[in-house]
């Protein structure tokens, strides 16, 4: 187990370092001189030169990267060119909106998808299954920002139940804040729930065909107990994979949804920063989101080990067939292949 986890941690760290290099390189080749931007068009070349020296922009590339990376590690992201405040303060304010939004959406999506998946799998091929999967098929096709617009139209414009947008801030009371996050969270969650429900269903159906399920039924366990205790647990690997992926999608999805609902989150900030060429804010947010995605993938890897004890026994090797970022179908297929090879190796022992 330690070897497995250690390998995952090393890979995650390596990915993080490479990602930071990519982000740094991208920001380097972007046109626009931050010093000129801060001083305005009327600044003389000398003034700009002085500021460039002050900001360390004339140092060698490698030194600047190391300085920047060291800053990231100590949560010192630098100062925003346009707001003239530490980026970390700007970001902290915005995370207080984006992170709860993504978490609520993730929770909603799971709460909806798992029961629907279990329901469909246990009634495979019957009317209820067809109906639920038809709805899921439709849900996958709906762009979340359009769904958001429709929700606004229905619940804010027509029924006046919730505000159409904006965020009162957490200081206005938890209830008021949650209320304004509700529609955005639903808009983000439903399309994701559709994907998750499909994955949960296929994973469950696969597991329900296994011999040990028949054994459990044969020894007299009621169907419900077998379904929820034995089958669901074994179907969790693909579900967890998708959940991990979805969190990344949700974080990125908040960028668009925040613009629909005028929420002052990271997404609004990154767009403002792009139009104002406030590169240090852009690169900080990008690094933040990328770090979040990498950490979550690492967490998913850890949870595999918790859910499936066999991963603990066979270090490293079995994970190699797992894709961590492709469409559900391929993941399911990979899991199938993984199971087949595993069964084969078990037979040999």
């Amino acid at each position, binding site marked *: 187990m330690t070897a497995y986890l250690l390998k995952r941690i090393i890979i995650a760290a390596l*990915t993080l370092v*490479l*990602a930071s290099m990519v982000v740094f390189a991208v920001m380097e080749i*972007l046109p626009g001189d931050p010093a000129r931007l801060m001083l305005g068009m009327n600044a003389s070349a000398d003034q700009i030169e002085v500021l460039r020296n002050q900001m360390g922009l004339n140092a060698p590339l490698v030194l600047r990267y190391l300085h920047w990376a060291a800053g990231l590690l100590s949560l010192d992201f630098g100062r925003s060119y346009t707001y003239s405040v530490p980026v970390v303060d700007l970001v902290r304010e915005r995370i207080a909106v984006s992170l709860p939004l993504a978490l609520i959406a993730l929770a909603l999506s799971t709460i909806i998808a798992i029961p629907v998946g279990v329901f469909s799998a246990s009634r495979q091929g019957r009317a209820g299954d067809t109906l639920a999967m038809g709805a899921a098929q439709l849900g996958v*096709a709906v762009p979340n920002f359009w769904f958001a*617009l429709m929700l606004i*139209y229905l619940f804010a414009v027509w029924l006046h139940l919730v505000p159409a947008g904006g965020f009162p801030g957490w200081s206005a009371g938890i209830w008021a804040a949650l209320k304004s996050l509700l529609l955005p969270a639903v808009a983000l969650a439903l399309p994701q729930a559709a994907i998750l429900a499909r994955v949960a269903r296929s994973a469950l159906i696969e597991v329900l065909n296994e011999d040990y399920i028949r054994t459990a039924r044969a020894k007299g366990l009621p169907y419900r107990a077998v379904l929820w205790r034995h089958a669901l647990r074994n179907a969790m690997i693909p579900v967890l994979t998708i959940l991990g992926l979805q969190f990344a999608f949700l974080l990125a999805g908040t960028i668009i949804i925040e613009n629909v609902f005028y929420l002052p989150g990271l997404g609004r900030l990154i*767009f403002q920063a792009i139009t104002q060429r406030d590169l240090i804010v852009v690169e900080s947010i990008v690094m933040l989101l990328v770090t979040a995605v990498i950490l979550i*993938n690492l967490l998913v890897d850890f949870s595999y080990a918790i859910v499936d004890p066999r991963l603990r026994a066979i270090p490293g090797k079995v994970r190699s067939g797992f894709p961590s970022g*492709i469409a559900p179908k391929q993941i399911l297929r990979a899991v199938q292949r993984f199971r087949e090879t595993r069964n084969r190796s078990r037979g040999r022992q």
Partner: protein
Amino acid sequence: MTMRIDLPEETIAGVLAKAFGNRSFLIGLAITLLVVAVALLSFVWTPYDVTKLVIADKTQAPSWAHWFGTDHFGRDILSMIMVGARNSIAVALVAVGIGMGIGVPLGAFAAARGGLADEALMRVNDLVFAFPALLSAIMITAIFGPGAVNAIIAIGIFNIPVFARVTRAGALAIWPREFILAARAAGKGLTRITVEHILPNIATLLLVQGTIQFALGILAEAGLSYVGLGAQPPMPSWGRMLFDAQTRMVTAPWMAIFPGMAIVITVLGLNLLGDGIADILDPKSRRRR
């Protein structure tokens, strides 16, 4: 000479029979053909000229003259949706082309060589996957500026590791098979085996993934144009139309409803088509049914 791991019943007639018995495939194909036909029709005919602004007709509700209503410049929504279909299809199609063109050779190479090349490719894949598609699209447009071409590049780059992974996983499953061993014994090189034996055998996998990425590409393009990073006005695009509709939800909801439905129907059609193809051609699903 190409070898396939076919089952005896997989003849053209057999596949066709299965295709016509598959509801998901038929509905998906019908919708996809309809969308493509509408996009092609828009080159020669649309109910109204989408470049002409008729301010007198602005934000009119759906009527017999304007089935889907008009926008804030008096342009016919139906005509704009028809022209917008071109943009969506073109962006998604080229993005899939980029993804396949670069991803498939990379994945096939990694599977054929294994070892260090394989490991390096997978790490680069991890790296690209660490950037959510929208985020890399934002970075790319921050460098090159917004526009349809840059949207294609952004979505295409995200497609590369997807196809690389699918190709690698598919190829790895084929390499240990006996007919590959026979080909090696016959003295064929890695490249020749890949082209003649591996790729034909994973074509189904790639076709299905291609449909999925096509659908995702249409969603991504809509998202990018919605935030102003995709096709630029006056070129109509579905995402852009939704952006224009957003501030007019109270007075002109039809401006949002119809372009959104166009996206949903198109993506739904492609997803159904992909599911159908997978069901028809995948021997595994055949056994399970």
